[in-house]
C-alpha cells in the first residue's frame, strides 16, 4: 500500500481504466480520484448543459476504506457499495436518483484458469453499464450519450478475469438502503466459486443494520444448541411457537411457517440470486413513501415491513421479492434462533404473499398489506423459487404451526384471515452448487405417513 505511485496509469491522460493487472488497491484509488477529477472537468465542459450535476467537492471517496474482503485461498474478492454521494462523485451523475447503486468489485485470481463474474447473481435485475448511461441522456443527443457511455463502460467490471490477474470495476445494481448483501458468483470451466459479503452503505438505515445479526452476537456461545441428530432437530423445530406475536407477546400474529438453515455463504446467496432483497426499516420516511406508492400503484421496492415479535424482539432481518408493483410482493421476516444444525445457523421465520394494500385501524400507518389467506402457498412458492437458486440442498416439512382449516381461519395481528395445513418448511442450503436433481427431500413430514401422504389421502 505504500509503494511509490509513479505508474504510467496514474498520469491521468487516458488512465481511466478501472481494470488492473497486479496493481495494488492504492493505485486504483489514486487513479479513480484522478479519473473522477477529469471526468468531472470533462462533464462540466461538455455536458454541463444537460441535467448532469457537478460532483460536490466535499465528498471524499471513502468507499475504498470500507472494503470488505473474502478469500477462499485461491480467489480473493473485495467489494464496497457506494453511497448516493459517492456514486455521484465517481460517475458524475446522480445514479441513486434513478435507483441505481454501483458496487465496486475487485477479484484477484490466483487460480490457473480464467474466471467470469456473473452480474445476474449479484442482482437479477442489474443494469448494464450502457443502459445506466442511457438513463442520463436522451436518444437524440448522440454526442453526450457517446461520452457518458464510454465513461460508464470504462468504470464497468470487465470479464474475463485471467489466471493470475486482478480485475476491478463496478457492477450497477438496484439501490439498496442501509446495507447490501453483495453476492459474487464466479464461473470458470467446470468450476464455480461464490462469495457473499454484507456491506454497509453510509447514509441509509435498514432492518438488519439495526439488528446487526451478522456481526453482533445475539446469543452467548453457551446458549446455542447444535443439533446433529435429525430427529432431535425435527422435534426442536416442532416445539417452536406457532406464530409471531405483538410486542407485549399477548396476541398471536402470522404463523412461523419457515425455517432456513444456512448463513451468509449459502442461504443468503440463494435468496439474492432469485431476487430477494432486504427491506427498509419502518420509519416515517419510508412509510410516507409507501403510502404514496400504494395510492399510485407504482413499484416501490423498499416498502417497509412492520415489526413482529419472536424471542421478545422484532425480526432480525426482513426480505422481500417485489413483482410488478408494491401490492405484489412476497415478504419474509427472519429471526436468528439459538439453534444450530451441524454447526449452521438456523433462522425461524414467517413468509406471506402480499396481494394488495388495504386500509386498517390495526396499524399506526393506517395501511397494511392484504396477504394471501392461503399462507401455505407462499411457503411453497419460496421452496420452489429456492429450488432454482442452485443453493438448496434439502427440503423438509415439520409440524408446529397448528392447522387452521379454511372453514375456521385464524387471524394475524392486522385481522387478515389465513388458513394453513399447520406445517412449516425447512430449507437447508449448501454453498456448493446444487442443480434440481441434487435436492433431497428429508424423510420427515414429507414422506411416509407424513404430510404428503396425508395430503394425497385427503
Amino acid at each position, binding site marked *: 500500500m505504500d509503494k511509490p505511485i509513479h505508474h504510467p496509469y496514474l498520469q491521468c491522460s487516458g488512465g481511466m*481504466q478501472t*481494470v488492473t*493487472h497486479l496493481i495494488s488497491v492504492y493505485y486504483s484509488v489514486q487513479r479513480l480520484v484522478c479519473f473522477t477529477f477529469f471526468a468531472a472537468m470533462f462533464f462540466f465542459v461538455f455536458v454541463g448543459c444537460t441535467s448532469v450535476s457537478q460532483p460536490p467537492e466535499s465528498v471524499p471517496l471513502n468507499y475504498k476504506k470500507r472494503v470488505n474482503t473474502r478469500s477462499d485461498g485461491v480467489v480473493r474478492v473485495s467489494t464496497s457499495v457506494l453511497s448516493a454521494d459517492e456514486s455521484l462523485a465517481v460517475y458524475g451523475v446522480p445514479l441513486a436518483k*434513478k435507483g441505481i447503486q454501483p458496487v465496486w468489485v475487485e477479484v484477484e485470481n490466483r487460480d490457473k484458469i*480464467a474466471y*467470469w463474474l*456473473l*452480474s*445476474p447473481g449479484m442482482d*437479477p435485475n442489474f*443494469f*448494464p453499464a*450502457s*443502459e445506466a448511461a*442511457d*438513463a442520463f441522456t436522451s*436518444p437524440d443527443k448522440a454526442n453526450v450519450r*457517446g461520452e457518458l457511455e*464510454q465513461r460508464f*463502460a470504462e468504470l464497468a467490471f*470487465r*470479464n474475463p478475469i*485471467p489466471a493470475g*490477474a486482478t*480485475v476491478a470495476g463496478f457492477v450497477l445494481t438496484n439501490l439498496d438502503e442501509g446495507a447490501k448483501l453483495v453476492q459474487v*458468483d464466479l*464461473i470458470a470451466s*467446470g*468450476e*464455480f466459486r461464490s462469495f457473499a459479503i454484507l456491506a454497509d452503505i453510509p447514509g441509509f438505515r435498514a432492518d438488519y443494520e439495526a439488528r446487526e445479526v451478522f456481526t453482533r452476537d445475539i446469543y452467548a456461545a453457551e446458549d446455542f444448541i447444535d443439533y446433529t441428530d435429525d430427529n432431535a432437530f425435527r422435534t426442536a423445530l416442532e416445539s417452536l411457537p406457532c406464530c409471531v406475536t405483538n410486542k407485549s407477546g399477548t396476541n398471536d400474529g402470522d404463523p412461523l411457517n419457515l425455517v432456513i438453515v444456512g448463513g451468509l455463504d449459502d442461504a443468503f446467496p440463494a435468496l439474492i440470486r432469485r431476487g430477494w432483497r432486504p427491506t427498509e426499516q419502518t420509519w416515517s420516511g419510508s412509510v410516507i413513501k409507501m403510502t404514496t406508492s400504494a*395510492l*399510485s*400503484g407504482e413499484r416501490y421496492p423498499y416498502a417497509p415491513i412492520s415489526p413482529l415479535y419472536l424471542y421478545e424482539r422484532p425480526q432480525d432481518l426482513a426480505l422481500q421479492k417485489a*413483482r*410488478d*408493483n408494491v401490492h405484489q410482493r412476497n415478504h419474509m421476516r427472519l429471526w436468528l434462533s439459538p439453534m444450530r444444525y451441524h454447526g449452521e445457523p438456523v433462522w425461524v421465520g414467517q413468509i406471506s*404473499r402480499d*396481494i*394488495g394494500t388495504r386500509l386498517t385501524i390495526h396499524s399506526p400507518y393506517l395501511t397494511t398489506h392484504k396477504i*394471501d*389467506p*392461503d399462507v401455505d*402457498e*407462499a411457503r*411453497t*412458492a419460496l421452496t*420452489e*423459487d429456492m429450488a*432454482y437458486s*442452485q443453493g438448496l440442498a434439502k427440503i423438509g416439512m415439520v409440524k408446529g404451526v397448528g392447522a387452521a382449516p*379454511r372453514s375456521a381461519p385464524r387471524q394475524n395481528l392486522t385481522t387478515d384471515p389465513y388458513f394453513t395445513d399447520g406445517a412449516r418448511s425447512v430449507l437447508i442450503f449448501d454453498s456448493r*452448487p446444487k*442443480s*434440481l*436433481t441434487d435436492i*433431497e*427431500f428429508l424423510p420427515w413430514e414429507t414422506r411416509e405417513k407424513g404430510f*404428503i401422504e396425508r*395430503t*394425497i389421502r385427503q
Partner: protein
Amino acid sequence: MTKGEYPLAESVTRWPFQSGSVLLTIIACVLALAGCATWQAPTEIDYSEIRARAITATVQKVTLSAAVLSTRDSQRIFGANINETGVQPVWIEVKNQTEQTLWLLQAGTDPDYFSPLEVAWSFHTAFAGGTNARIDEYFDARGFKNPIAPGATQTGIIFTNPHHKTRLLNVDLLGQGKLIPFTLFLPVPDDVPETGVLNVLQRIAITETVEYQEEDRFRAALEQMPCCATDAEQTSIGDPLNVIMVGDFADIASAFVRRGYRQAALEFDYTQHVFGREPDIVARKSGQGGVPANWMRMWVAPLRYRGQSVFVVQVGRPVGGRFTDNESTELILHPNVDEVRNLLIQDLLYSGGLGKLGFVTGVGAASPTQPRNSLEKALYYTDGLRAVMFMVTRPVALSDVQILEWDPVLKDLEKAVLGAE
C-alpha cells in the same frame, strides 16, 4: 404487429388505483355496486373442449397435457374474465405413472406466477363478504395442486403472466433426486395464429442442413456464417449475428422462459433478414412494468452439429433500455452490442440449460470510433466475436458448465481486459 400493440406492456398493472382521483371514483363505484355483487359460480364446467385442443407429451412415464385458456374459456370456467386482468390461465394435467411422488414447480413455469387467491382477490367487491368468500373458494379449487402421487392424475390451472401467439410452456416435475422436464408449445387461442414457434419447428423440419461431427470443422463453419442480417432486398447490411445457439429447440426455448423471456416480435424486428427471410422467432425480456430490456432474434441455420439444430441469433437492446417510455420512443439498436451479448450468456448460465460456451470470430470487429452502420440509421461497435452456446436438457449445475478453450479468441478477450493488446 405494430408498436402500439406491444404485448408486454399489458401485463403491467393489475391493480386499479392509478391515482387519487381514480381511487375516489372506484370507491364511489364500488359503493354504488356493492349491493349487487353478481359473481355466480359456473354451474357445470366442461373441460372436453380444452382437453381436445391440449398439447400432450410423455417423458419418463409421465404424461403432461396443457392448453392456454381463452377469454371465453376463463369466463366459462371461472365466471369472470381472468385474462382481462393481465393473467394467462394455463390448464395442466399430469398423469404420473412413475413410482414416486412428483411436484410441479410453478416457479419454473413462470418465475412471477400468481396464486389462485391473488387472482380471486382482484374480483372481490366491497361489502360482499359472502360472495368474496365463494370466489376465493371456487378459484382456489381450480388451481393446480401438488403433489402428484404415484399412479395419480392431477388436473388444475396455473395463473401465469401472458405470453402471446404461442406459449412456451416450461414444466419441471421434481421427484427425489430426479427432474422430469417438459417443454410444450401451446397456441394462445385469443391471438391470431402465428408464424413464430410453429414456424421454427416447421423450419427445422424443412431446412436442408450440412452435418458436422468434428468440433474444429464446425467451428470453422460458424466463422463463415454471414456477419450480419440484411434488409429485405439484401442491399443494406443490418444488425450483427452475434450469438450461435446449438441444441434442441425445446431446450433453448425453455431456458429463455425460465429466465423471464417471452415471445414478442415488433414490426422493426422483421426488417432484419438472414438466409433471405425474417426472423423465425423473436423473444424479449421485459423490465419492471413491461419495458423492453432487450431482444433476441433467431434463425434456423442450414447446418447441424452432431445431430443437433443450430440457430444464428442477433441479440441487442434498444437505446434507453428500461429507462424509456416504450409508448413514445422509437426503438433503436444500442451501439454496444457486445455488452448485451455477454449479459445474455450470464443470464442463461443461471437457466440451468447452458452446457458449454465458446466464442468464434465471424462478425468482424468495428471500433467505437469507427462504428458500423446497420438498418434504421443505427450504428454499432463490436469486438467481432459471436458467442456459441451449447444448450442441453436441464438441469446443469453452475459448476458443470464447460468453457471451450477456442484460441485465440478467449486469449484475446483476456488480453482486452488486461489492456495489453
